[in-house]
């Protein structure tokens, strides 16, 4: 039935247990093929003679037009919702996405991510006085200036704005400025411990 593949595409996205399922180019192509057939009918009908008795194609054209619009809506909704997810990921993972997720992106989506990052960077550079304002920080209201953290995975050296260097080795614990480790906590490198 018309539109069945399109709705499968939408359900795939809705039901996926993955954060970002692979772009289903095969299905997209099948849907576009269906559209081609639908459109062909409409074009043929428009150029043939209309006879209310023997050649009444009106209902057929209307239904196919609806199916074309439906397929288009599903395809666009598929892409749009994937972009929304990518956007959210940019805010949560930062500019470097995990390889498992990158592998599922289409070429267009890879490019989109780069452009989105650039647009954000441009905006953040131009707000908040001299140095710009990084909106990716302070995702929660701040409490203390310094916090205790435990390192969950080997990270290596981290140099603070002050020039002080910390060696973040697995299971090491540190007392560090909140503003400079918030990102690493959100990424799961550090864990915030003994908060109050």
């Amino acid at each position, binding site marked *: 039935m018309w539109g069945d593949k399109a709705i499968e595409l939408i359900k795939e996205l809705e039901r996926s247990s993955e954060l970002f399922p692979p772009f289903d180019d095969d299905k997209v192509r099948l849907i576009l093929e269906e559209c081609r057939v639908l459109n062909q009918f409409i074009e043929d009908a428009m150029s043939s003679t209309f006879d209310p008795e023997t050649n009444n194609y009106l209902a057929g054209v209307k239904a196919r037009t609806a199916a074309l619009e439906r397929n288009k809506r599903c395809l666009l909704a598929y892409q749009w919702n994937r972009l929304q997810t990518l956007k959210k990921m940019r805010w949560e993972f930062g500019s470097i996405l995990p390889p498992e997720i990158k592998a599922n992106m289409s070429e267009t989506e890879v490019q989109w991510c780069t452009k989105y990052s650039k647009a954000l960077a441009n*905006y953040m550079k*131009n707000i908040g006085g001299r140095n710009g304002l990084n909106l990716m920080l302070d995702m929660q209201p701040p409490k203390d200036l310094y916090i205790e953290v435990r390192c969950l995975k080997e990270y290596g050296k981290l140099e603070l704005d002050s020039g002080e260097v910390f060696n973040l080795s697995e299971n090491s614990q540190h007392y560090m400025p909140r503003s400079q480790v918030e990102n690493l906590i959100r990424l799961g490198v550090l864990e915030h411990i003994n908060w109050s």
Partner: protein
Amino acid sequence: MSNLEDMFLNEEEDDEEAITAKSVLEMITDAWVNEKLCPEILPNKAELVEVMMEQIDQMEENVLQLQKTDLRSIIHRQELERIRYLIRSYLRARLEKIEFYSVWVFKNQSVLSPQELAYLKEYLSLSVAPLKNLCDRFPGPAGQLNPKQMEIAPDLEAHVFAKSRVDLPDTIIVHDGPREEEITVTKDSQRIVPYSCIRQYVRDDRIKLI
């Protein structure tokens, strides 16, 4: 520069009318809460944010003069972090709406700051591209993006919790199907109302969202 800035810089000369850093901070705090709770994006407060960011930069320099362990330094730095959070969270709340309602906001762009407008334009063009790519692969007349369809408008009929800062001179009118109800709004009164019927008052800061 803006009037606001003039007033701000002249604060010592004219105490009565002066806008102090403290009151700017209060206005930003209110703007933050409103923006978080409002279905649509509100007129920007970029002037206030700019003034406050200058204050922050200045204060940051002053704090550098103090010993890091000095109690005063700690309190100042903590305050700077709090204000920076406030501004970031406020601008993020706006950014989220700018992105989601992009087409609609573009048509109502007077509420944006120049930087926000520049961002919106960039965002619109980069977001349309992948959708347009798909449409280009479409046969026939359906292969066009319909801007009307792409437009997501904020739900102005959404209900909100509101508190009035003043006695409103006029009653507000709540439409409920064929019925119309008039409400007199007094200072500090709180209600649940559809956003649409207090919209103008939220935009001009006579009513705040809670």
